[in-house]
């Protein structure tokens, strides 16, 4: 069931029950190409629909969105990416300690899980990945780092992610990749966009 929340004169916030429903609604909205809709922001439980008030109105967008029929709990497939990772992150031991398993087991679970890009945010090219291994659940660092190098692979809550650029951040770092998450030379600079399926592969 989609609930519509007022979000000013140039947007509508659609709220659903969970991440799967948000991704399904996002996929349906993308496919529908509603007139006057200029941007879609999928998130954990919502899709923000930005509109051009010269073309449409919040009421018209609400009505058109309510009439969509998002496809089941399945997630729209937006391609597959394999990310090679050197598992030498500064928080690998702490993550293993927190989960009560060996460092090798952390690597085995991270590479064994099937991840999906749920939504983007934080920085250009940063995708929040959700996995099918519920045991990989760690708190953020109590004190964020002021500088995390681009390519760092991290965990926070049940999310995994790769920092696209040098930035501050509070995720637990378990490894790093040379794969570029954000490259303006590509037609779509972000490698990880909502719906993309991701696997991590351990390399040296």
């Amino acid at each position: 069931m989609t609930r519509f929340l007022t979000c000013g004169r140039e947007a509508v916030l659609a709220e659903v029950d969970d991440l799967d429903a948000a991704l399904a609604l996002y996929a349906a909205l993308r496919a529908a190409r509603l007139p006057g809709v200029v941007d879609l922001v999928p998130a954990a439980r919502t899709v923000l629909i930005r509109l051009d008030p010269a073309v449409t109105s919040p009421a018209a967008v609400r009505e058109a969105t309510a009439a969509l029929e998002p496809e089941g709990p399945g997630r729209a497939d937006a391609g597959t990416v394999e990310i090679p990772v050197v598992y030498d992150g500064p928080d690998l031991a702490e993550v293993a300690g927190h989960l009560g398993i060996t460092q090798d087991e952390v690597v085995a679970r991270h590479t064994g899980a099937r991840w999906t890009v749920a939504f983007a945010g934080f920085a250009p090219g940063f995708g929040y990945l959700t996995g099918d291994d519920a045991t990989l659940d760690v708190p953020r660092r109590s004190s964020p780092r002021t500088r995390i190098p681009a390519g760092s692979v991290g965990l926070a809550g049940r999310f995994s992610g790769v920092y696209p650029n040098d930035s501050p951040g509070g995720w637990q770092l378990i490894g790093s990749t040379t794969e570029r998450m954000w490259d303006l030379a590509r037609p779509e600079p972000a490698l990880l966009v909502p719906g993309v399926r991701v696997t991590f592969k351990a390399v040296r």
Partner: protein
Amino acid sequence: MRMTIVRTGPMTVLKDAGRPGHAHQGVAPSGAVDRGAYARANALVGNPPGTAVLECTLGGLRVSFDEPAVLALTGTDAVLTVDGTPAAPEQPTTVPAGAVVAVTMPRRGLRSYLAVRGGIDVAPVLGSRSTDQLAGVGPARPAPGDVLPIGELPVVETRALPISDRQGPLEVDLGPRDDWFTAEAIETFLSAEYTVSHASNSVGLRLDGPPLARSRTEELPSEGVVRGAVQVPPDGRPIIFQADHPVTGGYPVVAVLTPEAADRAAQLRPGAPIRFTRAPG
């Protein structure tokens, strides 16, 4: 034609109508902070909507051109001077090649928009020439000595856009998360006086004033935010998101400014008093 940057003042960046359509890649729309003043500057020189201009915070900008150029300045009461002579405000002004064109320090307002007929023609990034100062996406900030190409857009006749002289409280629509706050907090928000903090920029206006208490204290999963959204972090002091806002925010948004109010907010200086009122239907 080319424009040479002689001085930039405290902060001068390129802005246009922004880059909507990239939120799924983690990129926010950005664009001019005061959209009305931006659109008026382009209309005055006959540029089509969406053309890139200079957004100059607190004056101090100096430029020159290698050919005669047609300029207009909007947004504040800053004065455009040509070799030291003031030009008429809010009017297209033709300046000769080699003249030093300056934007004075405004007494009222914060962000001035300098449009050049033909537009500033640097390479767009993801379809826009706006510099998103939070995400670091877009053309580099102009620096003294930079030479920027001016385009050759056909002149379009646009009816003059009115200057808003609205005063008084900023109009808002409550939501999307007004139900996360106590009734007293909503009443406070719609009646108290706030002050623009010095820690404000094109990402957000931070406000000092009475904190807003929440009725729901659980964590809000991050969700998409818009320009003009009034987000309330755990300390209870509201932040008004401006053009360079993040794609998503992790704290509840109590209300969203109307586009007109968001434009007025763009011109508020640190220390300015600010009140909110509900917008009519």
